[in-house]
């Protein structure tokens, strides 16, 4: 029952919305209402056939964007964790590096995008760096908070049970920090595609955003929508995978 409610109801809503769009697009109601050419309002069926007919091109660009998102997110997560651990153990490191982390987070990505392009060229790396820069911060902050939320009484209890510093870290602090880490991961996973698209917008020769820009210029609106559908699926998958990973790891909740 619960499964039906959580899966069936949203699916029904989406189906109804797509159906309504199909009707309104096919009979020209949307174009009439907006006072534009029907060309600009592809129906779901047209978007579907654009997806199918352009599958090779779309897949090539999806693969590029996906790499930017996944490599960037991976580096961001790694950097967030690697920075959080020493900052947990040393107030000196925390006080020294945390302001720097905040400063890095405050860099307007829109502003440094073009410069990174000049530094690193049109390839995948400026995009990866931007995604990494944008995603390490939520991971760092949530992981650090998670590690610091350890119950001091539990630490005392562990010490009387002959726990070394490492045993306390491994058996108490890391599990305590995991739920917070996964909250950070979900935020980072939501940011990553947006930043990757922006980075492609600044300058790129491939990727979904590059394709959207080109298709907009050549009025291939159905393919623009096809790319948008793919991006939505990527976003949903990223969130679903983060949630799944959380449920597999944080099993005691």
């Amino acid at each position: 029952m619960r499964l039906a409610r959580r899966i069936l109801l949203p699916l029904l809503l989406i189906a109804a919305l797509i159906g309504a769009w199909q009707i309104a697009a096919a009979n020209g109601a949307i174009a009439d209402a907006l006072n534009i050419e029907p060309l600009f309002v592809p129906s779901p069926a047209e978007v579907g056939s654009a997806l199918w007919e352009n599958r090779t091109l779309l897949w090539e660009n999806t693969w590029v964007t996906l790499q930017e998102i996944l490599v960037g997110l991976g580096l961001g997560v790694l950097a967030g964790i690697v920075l959080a651990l020493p900052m947990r153990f040393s107030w000196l490191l925390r006080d020294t590096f945390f302001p720097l982390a905040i400063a890095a987070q405050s860099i307007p990505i829109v502003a440094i995008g073009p410069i990174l392009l000049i530094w690193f060229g049109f390839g995948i790396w400026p995009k990866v760096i931007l995604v990494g820069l944008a995603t390490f911060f939520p991971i760092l902050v949530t992981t650090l908070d998670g590690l610091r939320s350890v119950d001091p009484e539990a630490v005392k209890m562990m010490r009387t049970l002959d726990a070394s510093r490492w045993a306390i870290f491994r058996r108490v602090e890391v599990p305590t920090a995991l739920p917070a880490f996964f909250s950070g991961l979900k935020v980072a996973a939501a940011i990553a595609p947006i930043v990757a698209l922006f980075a492609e917008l600044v300058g790129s020769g491939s990727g979904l955003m590059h394709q959207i820009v080109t298709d907009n210029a050549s009025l291939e609106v159905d393919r623009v929508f096809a790319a948008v559908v793919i991006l939505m699926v990527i976003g949903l998958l990223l969130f679903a995978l983060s949630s799944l990973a959380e449920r597999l790891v944080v099993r005691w909740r």
Partner: protein
Amino acid sequence: MESGAAATTDGGAAVAIRGLSHSFGELEVLTGLDLEAPAHTVLGLVGPSGCGKSTLLEILCGLREPSAGTVAVGAAADAPGRLARCAFMPQRDLLLPWYSALDNAALALRNRGVGRAEARAQAGELFDRFGLAGFEGERPGRLSGGMRQRVAFLRTLVAGKPVLALDEPFAALDAITRAEMQEWLAGALREDPRTAVLVSHDVEEVLYLCDRVAVLSARPGRVVAELRAPAPRAVDRVAAVTDPAFVHAREAALRALREGSR
């Protein structure tokens, strides 16, 4: 640290506290305490909230050094030595929710570097005796309050330390479960005598469970009365606590507690 622990199954170390005082900055929490618990006896500490009972247990367990005075557990008078000889059972069970009941009970063994299978086997042997058979694989969240407390006590016993420090072990339980657990703990200590220091604010609990009871005053805590629990006590809790000698001792403790709180 993992190998340095003087783990022993022999419950025979005595606790001796001499002239102990402790302050946090300007705040004096304990003053001039002299207490003793001979090997295999249970010493009870009862006092008003904030009288430094928990601090005393932390000092006993070697988690702190006192500002003044000495605390010896067996031959050890230094904090690391006491830490190796005392196992601490906190007020809240503090079971780690990510481990099963069995892995929680086996924590001390795992901390000392015993392999998982071996640690589980050793801790698992005690589950039956503690009425926990069949619940080895359950996570703490799925156990009742009484069962969680029993797992916590099991975890303390498995540590194999000669001295147990029990900090209001049943304070978080409802009245019925608490009475059951007191009876159960009395039985467990009868079967496997240990030196233990039990802190509580429940006079009846300490008199029922302990051989000797020290009544502490309000902060800064000092000993205002030392009582010997009426012995021999009946095995049945209700019979024990309604015995005229027990009632007499309880009233004496309450009187001392009231005077010490002023």
